[in-house]
């Protein structure tokens, strides 16, 4: 079976490409481990035009409904391991099988970045969490640390201010990067203690987390706490396209038509070097990539 197009990923970029492909009656396949990608994990969205306020899961539900209007072939639960051009076709390998297509759109998005501290894996779901929205309520009246002083870190801090007893913010850089309005709100609660130029070295405990050891310049702080929320950004899922040109952040480099350096392979959304990692931008890029792929297919027929 030779597809015209395979779309990798079903976040905002992949779903938009899918809707456009379906309307063009293309012979295409979508492969994704989930629907919605990072958008699913967004709390409150107030800047997606047309909705003054919508939550991430609600917006994803709308996207899904839109896509499911069409008869779309979607493979879940088979992670993509490799995408490569061989002669004039693109071969997509998953953990289960191999697919062939004339073109591919890589919209694989990003994964949360791990901390790399000792004990992080051992205490995962035993105090260490990557989803404050999910697990926050389990830490009612406890002491916790949020690792990362960016906007997503402070998003977690502001959620925990209402729940936890005390929140330590651990930021590796000398300064907090979150928007000042978030920082002000956090400090006003009186529950937040900020440690800049600080790095988590060890997460320790017995059955559950009991504390962390933090290197703050030349001293080592031992902070007793029960919860560790990791919010230190994300990494693009780009290693599945080994031959694609990438920038120093491992993002796939694309041109204004979402073309990569490999003929027939396009990329869209947060996996690319396009600035502004926003849902609305990813949707637009998914559209551009599909139109780019469509144009490409018309030239090779």
């Amino acid at each position, binding site marked *: 079976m030779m597809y015209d197009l395979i779309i990798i990923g079903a976040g905002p970029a992949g779903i938009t490409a899918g809707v456009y492909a379906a309307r063009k009656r293309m012979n295409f396949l979508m492969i994704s481990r989930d629907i919605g990608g990072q958008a699913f994990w967004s709390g409150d969205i107030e800047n997606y035009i047309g909705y003054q306020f919508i939550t991430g899961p609600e917006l994803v539900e709308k996207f899904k409904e839109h896509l499911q209007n069409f008869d779309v072939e979607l493979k879940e*639960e088979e992670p993509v391991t490799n995408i490569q051009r061989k002669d004039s076709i693109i071969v997509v390998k998953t953990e289960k099988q191999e697919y062939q297509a004339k073109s591919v759109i890589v919209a694989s998005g990003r994964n949360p970045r791990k901390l790399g501290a000792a004990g992080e894996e051992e205490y995962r779901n*035993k105090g260490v*969490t990557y989803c404050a929205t*999910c*697990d*926050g*309520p*389990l830490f009612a009246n406890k002491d916790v640390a949020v690792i990362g002083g960016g906007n997503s870190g402070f998003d977690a801090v502001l959620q925990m201010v209402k729940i936890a007893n005390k929140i330590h913010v651990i930021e590796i850089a000398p300064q907090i990067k979150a928007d000042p309005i978030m920082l002000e709100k956090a400090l006003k609660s009186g529950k937040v203690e900020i440690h800049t130029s600080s790095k988590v070295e060890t997460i320790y405990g017995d059955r559950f987390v009991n504390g962390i050891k933090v290197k703050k310049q030349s001293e080592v702080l031992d902070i007793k706490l029960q919860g560790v929320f990791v919010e230190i950004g994300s990494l693009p899922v780009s290693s599945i396209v080994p031959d694609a040109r990438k920038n120093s952040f491992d993002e796939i480099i694309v041109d204004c038509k979402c073309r990569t350096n490999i003929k027939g392979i396009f990329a869209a959304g947060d996996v690319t070097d396009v600035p502004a990692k926003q849902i609305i931008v990813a949707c637009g890029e998914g559209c551009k990539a599909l139109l780019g792929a469509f144009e490409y297919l018309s030239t090779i027929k």
Partner: protein
Amino acid sequence: MEKKITVYSTATCPYCAMVKNFLKDNNINFENKDVGQDHQAAREMVEKSGQMGVPVVDIDGEFIVGFNKPAIVKALGL
């Protein structure tokens, strides 16, 4: 015999919603315990399962963490 199923969840957690929707779509009865509101349920979940992350699904004493569809399918014999 029907299995006894408890889902420990929080109201704001996307994976919890996915687990519950999956069970509903398969017409499987379950009890939902909101560990964000119900602190006793939270303690119960942590003690029984040794987990501090939601969702946790208890299927006749077998604990499944996260939305692990293959594991749930297997445990339920779907």
